[in-house]
């Protein structure tokens, strides 16, 4: 090994704390990059392969009941490549030990052969025997969550009749990557079941012999989807078509796409932030080293080393840190990517999902770290090249303090010498002080923003379940009923209050922006489920007009005063033009609220309700749910407590769990920055400190001079970082928010206080580490060494 390389290793060893801190910063940046882009690649590739292999349909067209003969007409629509009809229907699962009925659906399997579209993936077991009336496939995720296996029997109510069915296989399907009961915003694998039966058997149950109630299509490559949808609707309209929609509007696909999109956005935005911080730290550290080694540089040049050779020596240092950090990041990225996979297999029904890191992400990660580190290094190397050997060989002139602050007047005289030294050294190198402050500020911003986000998740839960929706349970009817149904619910012993409501599925349209969702009709002054404004005050629903949740208003790009087109997909399917009255702050889903009476008037179905919110006596809840379970008109019950738990689980184990990784990363980085700042102060002031000690200052006084600068910089950086963190928390909240839930960012004094204490704590710990080192070094060693 050449002596220069040996010098390099020893120099790195001498500052190993800093080296490790910077490697960690680079490492976590690359880790997030490898993990997130790997997840994006794995999820999209798996989804693509799954869709292709199991022939995912391009278009879905639900209809009330269309004769089989209509399929021929549908297949003649230009650009329709293939069409197939199937039978689906609502199903209610009665699980022993489960007081409430669980909703789900039944899907037909062709009597012979394989389905043209959305072929099932058999996880276990076999397809139901052709002609079998009581054999079913059960959705694998649901079976697992509820403890069902092959050969088990399960009670299912379909079309008002209860049957006991035998599970012969567990399956998944590409249109069921993600399932949630309609009206329920929180997905929970245990709370929505899907069964598959042979077409014959299912047709008999739903009275669909020779007919279908859902058509699936594949389109030719160049098809214009909107045109095809219109033509399909034209054919199916007389048969009660409720509007064909493309794959993008399928809830399952939409949520998976949104998850992938969110990950992709974060993988593009977050790692560069960390790499920039790492570049900055490297710049500070290496420039300090070079500054301290001007004599060595001069010496090497005097011996005949070229500027390039000397530059390469220092550049290698940068490279080692960058490549080491990046390698660490790649390894951590693979590990954390693998660890995240179960999150996705739990919440999304992927038949197979292997974390396959994106090879490009290694290349990008490593080269970006090298580039970032080099960017920091280049400024330093410029100085290496510029340094003349003769100049370097001269003993360095004492730093010029003549043009800094002078301390005059009463205030000046109050300051003792050590304080003056601290203030002068900041004033003499304001840029360097500003750079350190900027670093600590960045750390403070990251830490406070991430802590705010933690709090925001909890606030979202609290707001959603105790301000916006204060009901204990929501009952959904099988079809819209008269208002008397609500009174019937109120008569159940233990029910304290009932608030009728009506959910109507609809396509909401503003120009080219559309959203397939629902309109919630609510009573005039609801007590349980309410639209609230930014200050959490309930918004009174106007007699006419619609109130949109923030997420929906964003999707549709619409605001108060504008007119929204509501294409109802039920009953007479009227198309309504409704003025947008207000935008409500919603946190769960993308709701649209209207007055129940206004909605019914528009539907021309007065006095109809599709369900009700309940307040119940907690002690009698089970009893109440059992009663509901036996009512034929009840399609499902969603219990607030269960929904809350599922949401918590989703946020802790699902996509929201990334916040823990990012939070940890924010704190690691913050500590790295503060620790580096302290070490830099030590290296720069070490000699002054020894001289002070020789002059008779105590260790404490000398330490004050050394760490005072760090303290001043830290105290300046904290409020600035807090302001930056406030802004950053909005950006991160937007990154975490999806149509499923929205994370509200606000100024959260606790989070900022917590982050500030952390930064201060990090400064104190770093200061103590530095001070311990100093106390241990012999005075003479410091004075003898040139640095």
């Amino acid at each position: 090994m050449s002596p220069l390389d040996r010098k390099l290793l020893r120099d790195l060893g001498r500052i190993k704390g800093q080296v490790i801190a910077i490697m960690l910063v680079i490492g976590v940046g690359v880790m997030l990059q490898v993990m997130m882009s790997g997840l994006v690649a794995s999820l999209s590739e798996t989804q693509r392969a799954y869709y292709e292999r199991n022939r995912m349909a391009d278009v879905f067209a639900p209809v009330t009941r269309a004769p089989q003969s209509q399929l021929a007409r549908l297949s003649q629509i230009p650009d329709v490549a293939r069409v197939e009809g199937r039978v689906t229907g609502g199903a209610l699962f009665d699980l022993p030990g489960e007081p409430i009925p669980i909703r789900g659906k039944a899907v037909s399997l062709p009597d012979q052969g394989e389905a043209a579209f959305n072929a099932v993936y058999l996880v276990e077991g076999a397809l139901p025997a052709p002609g079998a009336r009581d054999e079913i496939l059960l959705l694998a995720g649901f079976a697992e969550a509820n403890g069902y296996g092959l050969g088990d029997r399960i009670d299912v109510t379909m079309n008002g009749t209860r049957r006991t069915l035998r599970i012969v296989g567990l399956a998944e399907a590409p249109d069921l990557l993600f399932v949630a009961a309609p009206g329920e915003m929180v997905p929970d694998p245990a709370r929505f079941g899907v069964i598959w039966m042979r077409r014959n058997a299912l047709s008999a149950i739903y009275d669909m012999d020779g007919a279908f109630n859902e058509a699936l299509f594949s389109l030719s490559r160049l098809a214009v989807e909107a045109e095809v949808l219109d033509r399909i609707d034209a054919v199916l309209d007389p048969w009660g078509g409720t509007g064909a929609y493309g794959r993008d509007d399928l809830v399952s696909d939409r949520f998976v796409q949104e998850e992938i999109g969110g990950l992709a956005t974060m993988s593009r935005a977050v790692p560069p932030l960390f790499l920039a911080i790492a570049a900055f730290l490297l710049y500070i550290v290496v420039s300090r080293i070079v500054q301290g080694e001007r004599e060595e540089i001069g010496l090497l040049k005097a011996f005949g080393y070229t500027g390039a050779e000397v530059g390469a020596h220092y550049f290698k240092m940068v490279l080692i840190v960058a490549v080491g950090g990046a390698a660490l990041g790649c390894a951590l990225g693979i590990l954390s990517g693998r660890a995240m996979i179960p999150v996705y297999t739990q919440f999304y029904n992927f038949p197979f999902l292997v974390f396959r890191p994106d090879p490009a992400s290694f290349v990008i990660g490593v080269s970006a770290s090298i580039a970032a580190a080099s960017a920091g290094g280049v400024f330093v190397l410029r100085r290496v090249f510029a340094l003349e050997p003769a100049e370097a060989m001269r003993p360095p002139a004492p730093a010029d303090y003549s043009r800094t602050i002078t301390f005059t007047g009463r205030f000046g005289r109050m300051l003792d010498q050590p304080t003056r030294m601290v203030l002068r050294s900041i004033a003499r190198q304001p840029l360097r002080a500003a750079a350190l402050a900027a670093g600590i500020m960045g750390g403070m911003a990251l830490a406070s923003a991430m802590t705010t986000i933690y709090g925001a998740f909890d606030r979202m839960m609290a707001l959603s379940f105790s301000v916006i929706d204060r009901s204990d349970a929501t009952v959904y009817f099988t079809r819209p009923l008269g208002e008397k149904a609500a009174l019937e619910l109120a008569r159940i012993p233990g029910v304290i209050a009932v608030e009728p409501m009506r959910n109507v599925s609809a396509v909401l349209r503003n120009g080219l922006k559309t959203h397939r969702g629902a309109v919630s009709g609510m009573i005039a002054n609801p007590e349980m489920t309410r639209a609230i404004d930014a200050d959490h005050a309930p918004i009174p629903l106007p007699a006419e007009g619609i109130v949109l949740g923030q997420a929906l208003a964003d999707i549709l790009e619409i605001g108060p005063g504008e007119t929204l087109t509501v294409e109802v997909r039920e009953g007479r399917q009227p198309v309504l033009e409704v003025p947008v009255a207000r935008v409500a702050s919603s946190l769960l889903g993308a709701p649209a609220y209207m007055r129940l009476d206004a909605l019914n008037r528009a539907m021309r179905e007065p006095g109809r309700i599709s369900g009700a919110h309940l307040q119940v006596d907690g002690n009698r809840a089970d009893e109440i749910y059992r009663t509901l379970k036996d009512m034929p008109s009840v399609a499902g019950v969603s219990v607030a407590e269960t929904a809350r738990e599922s949401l918590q689980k989703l946020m802790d184990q699902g996509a929201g769990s990334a916040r823990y990784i990012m939070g940890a990363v924010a704190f690691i980085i913050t500590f790295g920055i503060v620790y580096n700042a302290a070490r830099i102060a030590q290296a720069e002031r070490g000699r002054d400190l020894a001289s002070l000690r020789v002059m008779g200052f105590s260790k404490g006084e000398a330490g004050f001079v050394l760490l005072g600068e760090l303290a001043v910089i830290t105290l300046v950086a904290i409020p600035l970082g807090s302001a930056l963190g406030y802004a950053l928390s909005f950006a991160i909240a937007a990154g975490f928010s999806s149509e499923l839930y929205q994370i509200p960012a606000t100024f959260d004094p606790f989070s900022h206080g917590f982050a500030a204490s952390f930064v201060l704590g990090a400064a104190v710990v770093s200061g103590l580490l530095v001070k311990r080192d100093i106390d241990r070094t012999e005075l003479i060693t410091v004075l003898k060494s040139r640095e």
Partner: protein
Amino acid sequence: MPVAFTTRDLTKTYGEGRSAVHALRGVDVEIPAGEIVVMLGASGSGKSTLLNILGGLDRPSSGTVHFRDLCLTDLNDARLTRFRRQHVGFVFQFYNLMPSLTARENVELVTEIAENPMAPEEALEVVGLKQRVDHFPSQLSGGEQQRVAIARAIAKQPEVLFCDEPTGALDSATGRAVLEVLHEVNARLGATVLMVTHAANIAGMAHRVIRLADGQIREVEVNATRIAPAEVVW
């Protein structure tokens, strides 16, 4: 005798305006090859400045420097670096060892890039530090550090050796040992040795003595008889 260095009207000014320092004010001097030349002068008279310019470490404000036929003042940085790499060795006024390298490694730093170097151990043996090759500078005394610096300078077997007060910090016995080494290098390798010193007695071992005052050559004296390094008294 061929000439190693020739300078013409060399000046060096630091700073400008009222605060300008004229370190050299028109120096014309010839250094013959193969001699030991000692430079004497008061502190601040410009000795280090002249040495640095001759060694290609610094550039004059005006005037020319030739090393044999090579005009140093015309060379670009890369060529000047090559000149230092191929022809000259330095021992500086301050020790200037790399603190993170051992004695041997400090010498290797130079032998690595030299064309015809001695073994680092051999060079350290010449300065009597054979036993201390693996010590770091912080484990060596000032005199020992200075001897490592000399070992480093002679290890590349340079044609010219520049020494800026090599004995400044040494006691007489160690100082004499260092002078012995310089004498050896001159006698055995035929290297030109250019030495700055405050100790007028050392001048006795030189072929030629140059006296500087106020940035100018006051006097050049050729010694008719030279004394051996061992006879130098402090």
